[in-house]
Structures are given as C-alpha cells and as structure tokens.
C-alpha cells in the first residue's frame, strides 16, 4: 500500500469518527434546544390563556385545535405543569404527528380549570433533517477537499524522496559516477540523501577496492603461476630425469594447470558479480549454439558421442557477447564432459527455450547443489562451470532448470521473452 493511500485512509477514518460523533452531538443538542424553545412557547401560551380566563373571556372561545380549557371540579391539589410527547391525528394529512403537550390544573378565582396546550413538533423534525443534510454535504465536501489537498501536497512534498528512490534504483555498483541527489529543503529528505550519499560513497570505495584487488590478485597470482609452469616445463626437458622424478614434475605441472584454470574461473565469476561486463548487443543464441557446436563437434566425435540438433525458432537476447559465448560453451562443454563414450547429446531450441540434453548416470547425491561453486562429481572437475552459467543466467533474467529423466540430464534455458 502506498504511503499516500495509507495516510488518506487514516484521515478518512479519523474524519468519519469525529464527524460521526459531532453529528450525534449536534443532533441531540439541537433537539434539546428546540424542545426547550417549544416548552417556553407553551408556557407563554398558557399564561396568555390564564390571563384571558382572568379577564372573563368565555371558555369556549379559548378552546381551539391546539388549546383545550375545561372547568373541572375542585381538587385538593393543583398539579404542576407536565410536558408530554404525544401523537395527534391530523385529518388533512391523515397521519399522526408528534406534538409536545403542556397540561396543568389551575385555580382562577373560585373555579378550577384544566388547561392543555399542544404544539406540533413537525417543524423541529424538518429542521433537524435540514441540519443533517447540510452537515452531510459539508462533511463530504471536506473529505474531498482533504483528499485532493493531500494528493497535491504529498505529490509535491514527496518528490525529493521519489527522486532519491529512482536514482537508487538505477544505480549500478559498477558505474563510474558517484551517486548525486537533487537538493531539497525538506530537512528529513536532505538528511536521508546525505546519509545515503555517504553510505554509497563507502560502498563505491569498497567496490573499487575490491575490483582493484581482483585484478591485482589475478596479476600477482598468475605471474608466479607462469614461473612455476615454465620452470616445470624446463625441468621436464632435462635429459637425466628418470620416470619417478618426471612424474613428480608432472604432478606439479598438472596442479599448476588446474590452479590457473581455477583462478580464471573465479575471476570470471567475480567479474560477472561485479557487473564488469557492461556492453550489450543483440545475440542470436541459436546461431551461437551452432557456431560453438562446430568447434566442439570434434571433441564429441573423439568420445563417439552421437549428436542430434533440432533448432526451430530463433532466439534473440540482449546481452554481453562475451558472456553469451561463455554461457553456451560452458553448457556444451558440460554436456560433452559428462557424457560417457558412445553416449548421446541433444540440443534443441524453440520459442524462448533452449535445451541441452546428454546421456549419463543419475546424480545420486541428494545434497548436490548443481549450480553452486565447487560442487563437483569428480575430483578432476573444478566445479565452476555451472555456477558461472547460473551467474550469467541470473544477470540476464534467464531461468535455468535441471532435471533428470530416462537416463538423460536436461538443462533448460527459459528466456524472458517480453
């Protein structure tokens, strides 16, 4: 949920609550006030009636629709004025209407009178309704105003924050420019930007250091490796070595070869992780597969592997040319490497899907993590090939799946086709 939507929702809830409560309060207060007013009116009318009786006007002339005066027998106790709510039938409307009625007994001269005066409350009800409707309009108007204002103010106020977010989203750790935000006079945002700038500066420095380190390390490691390799090479050329000694030299030589491959692989992984392969172009993966296949065909032939290729739809992808090469060759190499003599390999391509199948025994180790570095089936392998494949796939949002069925290892690349 967006911050703005959330804020508006809370505002709305609070407004609803306060307006609701206010509404109830106003309703009761108005009611009470009007009631009081009607009561005063009735008391007033009663006084007029009493005065008229005192002045000797005939009782019949005093009786009308809303006023009733009757002579009653003497009573010991004069009751005090009582107000009652009552319903009186209205002939015109054919309806009962609410009335407030004042009834009391009074002794004027020697006569006892019972006086009943009533007043319709229909106007009161109408008034309350009017007030309610007006309030409703005001309420709705206020809420609409509030939302619009909020939207406008927020859009403006949060702009620096959105800018910051956008910049952070587009930031690549490999980019040469340090991150720089627009100036803002909102204290919180300028604080945030400042902190992020400092933090990113640190990260950038670390990244540059790491990059430099990887390059330096590779240089520093490969040079002594080159020395070892050339020394062992020269040792091997000596005429007076016996087989035993030569095998020692060979062991050193083999390890050096392996170490340099390992170094190259790790370096490549680090470079992919550091996103050092920037430039991208449109790559025809099927064509790439075919081209590379030609190169590896000879090796497959040497292992007497039968190969079937079925490329239907073309698959283009925007990626770094070098990495696409590494991706395809690593998968091809993996297939050839793990296929036994006389086995088979199948390569296929359809819309958005590339498949590499090769025959071989099932991997029995349940904990075997195919795509993690240094996971290997035999000690000869480095265990880097497929982790490099995975890294490249992750980088370009290609899904890679592995499954084993009917004696075939199957690697599937699913391209993000949109």
């Amino acid at each position, binding site marked *: 949920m967006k911050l703005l939507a959330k804020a508006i929702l809370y505002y709305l809830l609070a407004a609803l609550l306060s307006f609701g409560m206010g509404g109830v309060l106003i309703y009761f207060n108005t009611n009470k006030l009007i009631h009081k007013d009607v009561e005063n009116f009735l008391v007033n009318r009663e006084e007029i009636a009493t005065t008229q009786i005192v002045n000797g006007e005939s009782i019949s002339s005093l009786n009308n629709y809303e006023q009733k005066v009757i002579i009653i027998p003497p009573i010991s106790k004069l009751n005090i004025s009582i107000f009652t709510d009552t319903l009186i039938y209205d002939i015109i409307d054919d309806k009962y209407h609410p009335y407030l009625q004042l009834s009391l007994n009074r002794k004027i001269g020697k006569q006892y009178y019972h006086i009943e005066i009533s007043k319709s409350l229909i106007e009161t009800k109408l008034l309350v309704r009017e007030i309610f409707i007006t309030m409703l309009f005001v309420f709705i108007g206020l809420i609409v105003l509030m939302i619009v204002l909020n939207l406008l103010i927020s859009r403006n106020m949060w702009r620096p924050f959105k800018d910051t977010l956008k910049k952070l989203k587009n930031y690549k750790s490999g980019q040469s420019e340090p991150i720089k935000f627009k100036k803002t006079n909102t204290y919180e945002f300028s604080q945030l930007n400042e902190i992020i700038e400092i933090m990113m500066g640190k990260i950038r420095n670390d990244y540059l250091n790491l990059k430099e380190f990887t390059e330096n390390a590779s*240089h520093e490691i*490969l040079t002594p490796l*080159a020395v070892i390799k*050339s020394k062992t090479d020269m040792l091997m050329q000596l005429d007076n070595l016996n087989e035993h000694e030569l095998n020692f030299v060979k062991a050193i030589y083999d390890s*050096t070869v392996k170490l340099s491959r390992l170094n190259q692989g790790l370096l490549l992984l680090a470079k992919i992780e550091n996103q050092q392969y920037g430039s991208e172009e449109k790559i025809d993966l099927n064509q790439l597969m075919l081209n590379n296949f030609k190169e590896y065909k*000879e090796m497959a032939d040497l292992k007497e592997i039968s190969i079937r290729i079925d490329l239907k739809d073309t698959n283009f992808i925007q990626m770094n040319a070098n990495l696409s090469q590494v991706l395809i060759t690593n998968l091809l190499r993996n297939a050839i*490497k793990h296929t036994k003599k006389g086995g088979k390999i199948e390569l296929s391509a359809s819309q958005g899907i590339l498949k590499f199948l090769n025959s071989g025994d099932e991997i029995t180790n349940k904990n075997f993590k195919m795509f993690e570095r240094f996971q290997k089936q035999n000690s*000869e392998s480095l265990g880097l090939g497929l982790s490099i494949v995975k890294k490249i796939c992750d980088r370009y949002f290609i899904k890679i799946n592995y499954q084993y069925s009917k004696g075939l290892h199957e690697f599937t690349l699913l391209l993000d086709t949109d």
Partner: protein
Amino acid sequence: MKILIVEDEKELVDDLNEFLDDQGYIIEVAPTTSVAREKIFVYQYDILILDLGLPDGSGLDVLKYVKKHKPQTGIIILTARDSLDDKISGLDLGADDYMTKPFLLSELNARIKSIHRRRNFDGNSTIIFNEIEIDTDKMRVSINDQNLTLTRKEYELILYFVINKNKVLTKESIIEHLWGDHSDMFDSLDFIYTHIKNLRKKMQDMGGADYLKSVYGIGYKFETD
C-alpha cells in the same frame, strides 16, 4: 632472429631467455617501458614479447610506440591480466598475438615461429628438417619429396613437433595447441595417442624415420638424435 622481451618478472625472463636462446634467437630484455622504448628506438627487433603490466606503465603504450616507429616488428602480448578489454585493445592496436599467463614455452615458441613466417612474406615459408619438408603457406608436408596426406590436426601436430623438436610436450600442451584449452573435457588424454600413431604411420609409410617418442606416459617428444 632478434627478440626483445619486455617483462619485469625476473624468473620468467630467465626462463624465456634460456628457452629462446636455446632455439637460436638473439634475446634482449627490457624490464620497464622506458628501457623498452629506448631499445626499440635504437635497435631493430623482429619480434617483441610484451608484458602489459609493467612497473612504470602499461605495455599498451609500448605497443603504440612500436606501431608508430617500427611497424614491421611482430608483437606478442603476454599478460597476467585475463582482461577482455586489454585483449581487444591490444589486438586493435596491432598486436599479432595474445597469450595469457601462465603459458607454455613450447606454445610461445609455436606462435613466435608463426608470426615470423607471416611477417617474412618474401622469405622462406618452408621448414625443412632432414627428410621432412613443411610448406606453411600451402599447409603441405612432404617426406623425401613425397606428399603426405594429413588431416588438419595431423598437420598442426607435426608442425608443433618440428618447431619444438627435442622438447618434451605434455599431452595437455598438445591438446591446448590443437584444440584450445579443452583438456579438462576428457576423462583421459590418451586419444592423443591415436593421432600420434596415425601421424607416425603416415610418415613411416613414406620412408620417414620414427622421431616421435613417448615420454613415460606424460607426453611426447620429437627426437632428432
């Protein structure tokens, strides 16, 4: 043939020196870019073996300098830096070949010979050793003036052996030379034996001597004595 080695790692220079000296080249060494520039300015070299990471700058600057002043010099870039950018800029600037450390001396030797042949168009592109004659232009091998019918790999194999005669060549180095760096793809490197056997047979059929010797199962040697 004169070769200038521009490299700061002393051990490596010593090995290169010894190995290339053995091949009959005249070797000079420059440990820094400034020394390299001086030497290039004064002397004439056929081939420059150039390390990119030098203490006082990048070998790419030396490369530019050579291309400007002595464009006829062949250049092999030799570097620990397995960086694609360097490789591309190196080749763009006109280097003839590129080798990443660690490399094999026999491989370097093959590439030096190859550049040398390419650079001397008017010179002799034929390598003659006893009864064997290799025409590198036509990629043809003959023994006792009789043509050998060789596969591409067999041709490359015999060329590699003749260039590196009397050197032990490991199976890995042979595979690396013929197929690129793919020796890790094979459970066993013994398939090399088939190629050697075929080559040996074809040569002997034409009356050639048996020069190819197996060395304790680690590799092969083209033995001349």
